[in-house]
């Protein structure tokens, strides 16, 4: 779709995974590496055809460790790269995700979550890997992760993921789940000139061995390989010029803080949340991804019954929208946290609320089977009465 100019508005009825692949292509993705895994394989199927049509590359790697390594290598070769997998694949990728973070490599990682731990339940929807992008790789780092709740958002958020990856030189996660990935729904494709693309800041000329290519809180320019820029890239602790220093704690301190601040100082630009009916709400329901669909419908019904309830939905899971949740906690009396897990994001909501509002965790009765409407509605009524 990138090759031919989109001058006519196009709508399709497609799977979330396909919408994700289309979003990547619309964002200019020209390198895909992946290893087969349920429930993410459809993305690879689609890319194995489409990548070559856009003069790009598709490779089915020997394992997920190689998939992430391939996309990082390709990114340094100047490509916009992506991989798609599920929880077990992310578990294998984690060490190299840390390398992508510390070498400030733009790339997109899609996790179509399934039941876990271990092999788990491959096609059951689960929000079990919410902490994994932020805390899975060792050390101290920031990451960006987005949680779509529909095939349309699989398209839109994948474009956004590439934009944020390019802008901040960082791996960006799409945290979907098996139901979002396999759900078929209407997707409206934007016209080409409606898609705004961010491109990475590149180093233009070689500026000597101490050229500043890392650790700028406003993002250093990236020396693409093969252009005579003599890039000096390492996963060891390094300075702005890439030279390693692994013994001086002050250098490590500077590296970790700048790497984190590169994201934290731009939270306003990075974080997106969606608020509904919060103006006069006594109760807010905090949810994201697939669960948000059930919550939003329940909130609509509750409003029709005159209940003062609203919805707060983080689109950006990482960095966590701490300030936005704090603000919310000052407006409402109670926040009900709905997640399809045993409370992964709940402690972060509680910490951000800092005692301002009562925080209640409401998991679905059966994990993976999702909520029955009464489960949420009864809780709202119980809290309000």
């Amino acid at each position: 779709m990138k090759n031919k100019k989109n001058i006519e508005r196009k709508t399709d009825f497609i799977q979330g995974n396909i919408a994700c692949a289309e979003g990547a292509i619309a964002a200019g993705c020209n390198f895909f590496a992946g290893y087969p895994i349920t429930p993410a394989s459809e993305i690879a199927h689609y890319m194995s055809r489409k990548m070559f049509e856009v003069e790009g590359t598709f490779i089915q790697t020997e394992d997920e460790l190689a998939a992430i390594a391939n996309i990082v290598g390709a990114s340094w070769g100047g490509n916009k790269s992506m991989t798609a997998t599920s929880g077990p694949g992310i578990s294998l990728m984690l060490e190299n995700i840390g390398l992508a973070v510390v070498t400030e490599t733009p790339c997109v990682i899609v996790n179509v979550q399934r039941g876990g731990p271990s092999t788990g339940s491959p096609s059951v929807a689960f929000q079990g890997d919410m902490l994994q992008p932020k805390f899975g790789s060792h050390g101290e780092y920031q990451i960006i992760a987005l949680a779509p709740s529909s095939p349309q958002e699989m398209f839109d958020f994948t474009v956004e993921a590439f934009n944020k990856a390019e802008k901040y030189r960082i791996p960006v996660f799409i945290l979907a789940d098996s139901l979002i990935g396999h759900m078929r729904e209407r997707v409206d494709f934007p016209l080409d000139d409606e898609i705004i693309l961010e491109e990475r800041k590149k180093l233009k000329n070689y500026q000597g061995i101490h050229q500043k290519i890392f650790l700028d809180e406003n993002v250093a320019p990236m020396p693409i390989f093969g252009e005579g820029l003599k890039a000096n890239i390492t996963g060891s602790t390094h300075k702005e010029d890439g030279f390693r220093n692994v013994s001086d704690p002050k250098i490590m301190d500077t590296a970790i803080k700048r790497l984190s601040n590169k994201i934290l100082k731009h939270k306003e630009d990075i974080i997106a949340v969606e608020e509904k009916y919060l103006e006069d709400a006594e109760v807010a329901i905090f949810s994201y991804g697939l669960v948000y669909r059930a919550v939003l419908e329940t909130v609509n019904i509750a409003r029709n019954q005159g209940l003062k309830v609203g919805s707060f939905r983080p689109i950006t899971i990482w960095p966590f929208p701490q300030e936005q949740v704090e603000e919310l906690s000052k407006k409402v009396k109670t926040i009900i946290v709905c997640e399809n897990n045993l409370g992964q994001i709940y402690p972060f909501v509680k910490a951000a609320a800092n005692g301002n509002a009562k925080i209640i965790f409401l998991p679905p009765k059966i994990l993976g089977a999702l909520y029955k409407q009464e489960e949420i509605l009864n809780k709202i009524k119980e809290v309000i009465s």
Partner: protein
Amino acid sequence: MKNTVGHPLKKYFRGEINYTTCSGCGNGIISQSILRAIDEIAIIFDQIAFVSGIGCSGWIPSPSFNTDVLHVTHGRSIAFATGLKLAAPQMKVIVCAGDGDTGAIGGNHFIHAARRNIDLTVVCVNNGIFGMTGGQVAPTTPYNSVTTTTPYGSIERPFDLSNLAIAAGATFVARWTTYHARSLKNSIKKAIEHKGFSFIEVISQCPVQYGKVIGMRNDPVSMLMHYKECAVNINKAKNMSADELKDKIIVGELVEKKNIPELTDEIKRLRREASRK
């Protein structure tokens, strides 16, 4: 008057950094062999990228070589190099790996790169031990060796990395020792110019860690002389029995296959086919 003579390879170094390897390490000979090969091919250094992993071998190019250098996680250098080569096929990509990188933690990437015949050159520094971490047994350590993790002697048989490369489909394979610096340089030259996956195994001395195992601690000269005595050229080895070859190191260019489809060429072909549809 003082005469100053510049080292002919100095132009390839980033400068302002000292090599961190122990005295007597084989890394210096291997670095020189790689750079002399490049110098003789007269290829523009900026058109070569180096990828290396963790272990002493990773420090051959990183950060010393003054071109694009990507220093990655342990064992994954070939996988990162694969992505880089696919994205920038105009570049020559050389991987400097160790026997731990290649034969232990990254074995899967190694055999699959060979199978794909992707145009990478892997220079594998095989010192038969985990040097940097304190002399632990490696998948290349000879049977019954006493190391820091095999106090009763090692009970596993070692990998022959070159044979592994050949079995997996590598289209250029050579093995030398650091004693054979000039032959090594010539084979690296051929490997860089070879279109496809090339694998150079260099048996290299680690006098600090492996020296202990064979009673040559901190004695690199004896280790090099030992290589000289043990080495048998492949042409001679062909006519020798297994018994005669026991404890010998077979050196030389072991495999050279031409006209096997190379991965980046195959991808270009797929793009052409996709555009016709």
